[in-house]
Structures are given as structure tokens and as C-alpha cells.
């Protein structure tokens, strides 16, 4: 009996959550055009989300490229000529590692920051105060953040892809002994523009998810400081999970349907 009650409550909470997410999603869609009234705010957010994430992305991508290079060389041993090292690093970085890892590290940083900021505004009644002076919090707070994250994540990913490949290249020379020339011609050999484009299309969606889950959880904050902590944690967990799930769905859509191999 108790199990049923707990299960029932869980299902109700879940439905309520879906309802809340859909409602905010709908309002963002409906009011999307109002972003042009909030360009100033959007630029501020682009700076904090985009420029602010550069050091994190830099370190992450250089090391990820480096480790990809070393691991690939190890797996090639005796089977695949090292000539293909550049090809493998390039492929895995542009298709998968660049977009997803950038989204995950930026997602952790940005969705937490957004949820904490909006959550604090919520519990200190600043959101209500905004409503009271007839300013729509969705228009004023949510739209600029979503627009900024959606635009900046692809930019950060291009940056990350580049750094990861450079990282892989340097490690290939220093640790594996593959010259820059060899690495580069391997890279060129299998490079397809659609890999880069496909990878970048995903990041628009990831950027949206990151800002959206930050805002949604911020708005749902209840209670005081503890509630802000809970909201922040939920924002990070939910945006990371959604990134991983949507990554699969998008990969399927992009590489099995749009750029289908023939």
C-alpha cells in the first residue's frame, strides 16, 4: 500500500514537472520575438556565458584531444597504420567529443549559475517584484539567457574542436612520434564538412537545453538557501541528462536521416 502511494506521488510529481517544463517552453516560443527588445541583456549574457567559459573549455578540450590521440595510437598498435591517427582524432572530436564535452562542462557551469541567480531572485521575491512593475520575467530574464547560450555554445564548440585537434596533434608528435605533416594529411583524408556541421547543429540544441533548464529550475525554487541549492543541483543534473539523451536522438536524426550514408 505504501509503495503504491509513493509510486503514485512520484508519477504525479513527474506529470507536474512535464507540465511546468511545457508551459515555460510554450511561453518562450510564444514570446521569442520579444528578444529584440532585450538585446542589451542578451549581450551581457553572451559575455558571461561565452567569454566566461573560455578558460574552462580551453583546458578541457586540449586535454581531451591529447587523450584521444594517445588512446587511439594505443588501439592502433599492430593493426592500423599511425597515418590514420589524425583522421580518427579529427572525426571523433568534430562528431562527438567536441560538441558533447563542451556542452557538459559549459552546461555544468552555466545552468548552475543561472539556476542559482534566478533561484535567489525567486526566494527574495525579486521575480514577484518584477511582475509587480509589469516586467515579464520570461521576456526579461529567460529569453536573453536562452538566446545567449544557444548562440554561444556553437562558437565555443568550434573553439573546442580546434583546440582538441591541436592538442591531439602535439601529443601525437611528442608522445607517439607522428609528425605534424603525417597527422595533418590523415586529418584531411577523412574530413567531411558535414561532420563539422552535424556536430555544430547539435550544439544549438544543447545550448538551449542548458539555459532552459537553468531558468526553469530557478523559477521553481522553493524555500530559502537550501531551496536554491536544490534548484542548482537539479538544473545541472537535468541539463546533463537531457544533453546526453538528445545527443543520441540528434545523432540519429542528423547522421542517419539528414546526412544519411548512401
Amino acid at each position, binding site marked *: 500500500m505504501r509503495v503504491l502511494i509513493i509510486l503514485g506521488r512520484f508519477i504525479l510529481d513527474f506529470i507536474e514537472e512535464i507540465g511546468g517544463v511545457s508551459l515555460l517552453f510554450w511561453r518562450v516560443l510564444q514570446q521569442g520575438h520579444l528578444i529584440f527588445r532585450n538585446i542589451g541583456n542578451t549581450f551581457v549574457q553572451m559575455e558571461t556565458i561565452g567569454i566566461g567559459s573560455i578558460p574552462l573549455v580551453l583546458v578541457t578540450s586540449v586535454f581531451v584531444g591529447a587523450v584521444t590521440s594517445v588512446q587511439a595510437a594505443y588501439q592502433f598498435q599492430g593493426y592500423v597504420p599511425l597515418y590514420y591517427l589524425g583522421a580518427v582524432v579529427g572525426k571523433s572530436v568534430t562528431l562527438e567529443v567536441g560538441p558533447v564535452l563542451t556542452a557538459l562542462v559549459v552546461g555544468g557551469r552555466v545552468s548552475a549559475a543561472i539556476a542559482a541567480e534566478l533561484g535567489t*531572485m525567486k526566494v527574495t*521575491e*525579486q521575480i*514577484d*517584484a518584477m511582475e*509587480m*512593475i*509589469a*516586467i515579464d520575467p520570461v521576456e526579461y530574464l529567460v529569453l536573453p539567457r536562452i538566446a545567449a547560450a544557444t548562440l554561444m555554445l556553437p562558437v565555443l564548440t568550434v573553439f573546442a574542436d580546434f583546440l582538441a585537434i591541436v592538442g591531439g596533434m602535439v601529443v601525437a608528435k611528442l608522445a607517439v612520434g607522428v609528425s605534424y605533416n603525417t597527422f595533418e594529411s590523415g586529418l584531411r583524408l577523412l574530413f567531411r564538412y558535414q561532420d563539422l556541421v552535424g556536430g555544430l547543429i547539435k550544439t544549438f540544441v544543447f545550448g538551449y537545453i542548458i539555459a532552459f533548464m537553468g531558468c526553469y529550475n530557478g523559477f521553481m525554487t522553493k524555500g530559502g538557501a537550501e531551496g536554491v541549492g536544490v534548484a542548482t543541483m537539479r538544473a545541472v543534473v537535468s541539463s546533463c541528462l537531457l544533453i546526453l539523451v538528445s545527443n543520441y536522438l540528434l545523432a540519429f536524426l542528423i547522421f542517419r536521416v539528414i546526412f544519411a550514408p548512401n
Partner: protein
Amino acid sequence: MNEQCSGPIIELRGVRKRFGRQEVLGGIDLSIGACETLVIIGRSGCGKSVLLKHITGLIRPDEGRILFHGEDITQFGRKSLFEMRMHFGMLFQGAALFDSMTVGENVALPLVKHSAMTDEEIRRTALDKLRLVGLPDVWDMYPAQLSGGMKKRVGLARAVVMDPQVVLYDEPTTGLDPIMADVINVLIRSLQKELDITSVVVTHDIKSAYKVGDRLAMLHEGRIIFSGTPEETARTGDETVRQFIEGRAEGPIRAV
């Protein structure tokens, strides 16, 4: 008294609200006259803030009607609600200043967003309101640099910057020292006289209630159980009200 000061400006009819299992408002009937200062008293957690948020449409009731100038705001969409709120000012319990903005930007924001004034006019109007609350020199400071009493006064300046018809105060004196509390009480009184506004003050500070109120109403267990002038309140025979205004642990209200 001018003409617009006759008849009720806000009416609540059978307003009910529950959160989950907890019934917070159990059928509120209340009329607020134009230009009067109504003080709603009640214990902490009895639903005073929830009641104020119903009047401004921040919370929708489960049942009942809320009329502003005879129009039912529970049926309003976002746009009409925003239009209505232009005539409202609210001082929140913690002042709710935007902490990413300076004091000046906080007070000026409603004008920046909704008026056709030039930057210079906006600045002058906002400064006038800051002067009204006795803080002409804090324009460039951030809320984090202000004391509790100063925050409330800035919040008050922001609440009245659009010259609203109605100002709502959520526990304006709570958490302030007695002298600052009196400063706020005097301000509420003088704003009311100078600007001809309707005020609704929610508080558990009985001294402040007597000082600013034309009329007192008591919210208890989700209902308005009493309403009268300060004199009537002081003479009432209602044991529940007596216990509250005298601040006794024993009586019909179970303290814990």
C-alpha cells in the same frame, strides 16, 4: 476628499486558496475603500502575504472573485494584469530590490520600461521619490551596501515612482528597530496624505497597525474575523482579537 475617493476600489468575494492539503484562505470577503488605509493583522504564517499576492494577481484563487474598480481580475490575461499593475505599487517584506542594479536603476526601472519620459525626466522623478523617503544620496549604491531600513525606504520609493492608485505593504516594519519602524509608519501616513492613495498594510506589528490604519481587519484561520476602526478594535469584546492585540499566550488562539 475628492471624488475618486468614494466607494470601494478593491473587493474580494469568497476567495479561497489551498496549497496541497493546507487551506490558507477559506473564503475571504473584504472591501477596500478608495483612499483608505486598511491594515490587515494576523499571526505569522496565517496567509497575509498570500492574500496580498491575490490582490495583485500574482496568485490566482481556487474560488472566488477579486474586483479592481469592479472588474474581476481573476479572469484577466497577462496583458490586462500588467496594465492593472501599473496602478499598483508593492513594498515587499525583504524590499526585493534587484541586487544587480544600483538604487537609482531600481527606482527608475518602472519609468524606463513604461513611461515616455526622457532620461533627464526619469532621473529627476526617481530622485524626487528618493528624497521623499529621505534618501537623496544613495543613487549609485548597490542594495547590498544598504541597511534593512534603507532598503525598505528604497523599495517604497520604487513602489510609488509611477504614482500608483494603490500601494501594498508586506510587513513594512518587521525586522526594523523601533525608531526606523516609526520612520516607516510616518512615511506611509504622509504618502497617503500627499498622493491620495489607497494603502493596504499587512503586519503583525500591532503598534504600527494603530498608527497607520484608518481601519483594521484581522485574518485568522483563513477568514477575516474582525474589521473596525482603531478605536473599535481597542474596545472589541472579541476574545481572539483581544488575545492578538494584547499579545497573550493564553486564549482562544492556540499558540503552538
